[in-house]
């Protein structure tokens, strides 16, 4: 059973790390602010979500698992809001730099 949990954890966290690396690469390489935002949201939503998913079976209590999920939900909320605000600021400025 613990082997299954370990394998699941490694697979999920590895996939999460992949999305973080991809998001970081997109942040550095994409040409304009809106596509960079698009790259970042993948790291926040999927990357962190997968890492939380991989950590869930290892949490010591249901409360700890709930806290992990709450952290993911809060980051989703904050990430989505800041992406909206940055996107609006970019549009208002009228430049794509």
């Amino acid at each position, binding site marked *: 059973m613990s082997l299954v949990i370990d394998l699941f954890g490694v697979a999920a966290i590895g996939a999460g790390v992949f999305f973080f690396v991809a998001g970081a690469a997109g942040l550095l390489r994409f040409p304009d602010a809106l596509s960079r935002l698009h790259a970042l949201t993948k790291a926040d939503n999927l990357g962190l979500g997968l890492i939380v998913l991989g950590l869930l079976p290892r949490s010591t209590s249901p409360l700890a698992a709930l806290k992990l999920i709450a952290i993911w939900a809060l980051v989703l909320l904050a990430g989505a*809001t800041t992406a909206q605000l940055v996107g609006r600021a970019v549009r208002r400025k009228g430049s794509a730099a």
Partner: protein
Amino acid sequence: MSVLQALDIGLALLVFAVAAWTIFAPGAFSATVGYVVYGLLLSLVWIRLFAVDVALTEAAIGSGVTGVLLIGAAARLREAKTAGDEKSLSGLPRLLIAGLCTLVALALAAVALLFPDQGPSLAPQSMRRLPETGLGNPVTAVLIAYRAFDTMLEKVVLVLAVVGVWSLAADRYWGGAPGEARLARPEPTLAFLAQVLAPLGVLVGIHIFWVGADEPGGAFQGGAILAAMWMIAMMARLTEAPRTSAFWLRLALVAGPLVFLIAGVAGAIFAGSFFAYPPGFAKPVILFIETFMVLSIAVALPMLVAGPPRREPPR
């Protein structure tokens, strides 16, 4: 070299790199963003040093509240610069400031390197007396019991800081409200964030304060989270800062240090010495003091961010 050691070294290098970037950043706004990232990395360092209380404080106060204050300052400086009221520092003062900062950093580094391997420590004594306070978190015991007087003075400093900010108001605004007025139709994105986050944040803030008695957390961290929720509601312009002449506001500001001081004097009468807590009742007294400290912190920090009064008080 183990994986953890490699991570620690990587973290330390990252902290150095972000610190250097913050110093050489092209503008005040970029430097502030660098400073916030630097603070968040530092709180990771504190976690690696097993100082979770310090990590929480660094993230909430060092990075969060100070970051908001600095962003506000950067925005105001930019307005002043475009208006021509404010000039950038020229070469010599800049060099002097850099020199003095380097000197302080080098002195601190030298002291840290000169520490004996087994430094003098009061940790065993403080752990031995911990049960008498009824607390499980030694950091809270140090803050509210062993060095209660210092903590009380820190709260007084916070009140003085708010008084200092208010003193910058023009005469006609004295007693008026700082910041922007609330809007009937606030900006939807921020308003949504404030409406969803604030109830959760208030819960988390109270939780952090409450568990602070036995686990990492405490009045300062919890109060800072509550303060952040009020700041978000004000930034979304769902609500506006109260008039600085409001009696409830001033009472809430001084409640923390005042209750603390009264408890200290009561200790002199009932428990034998200034800031002593009666045996067996230490924990309730400590929690009572902390409750009012949370209130004062949650009110003082948003008032610092809101700045000096900028609207005329109603006559």
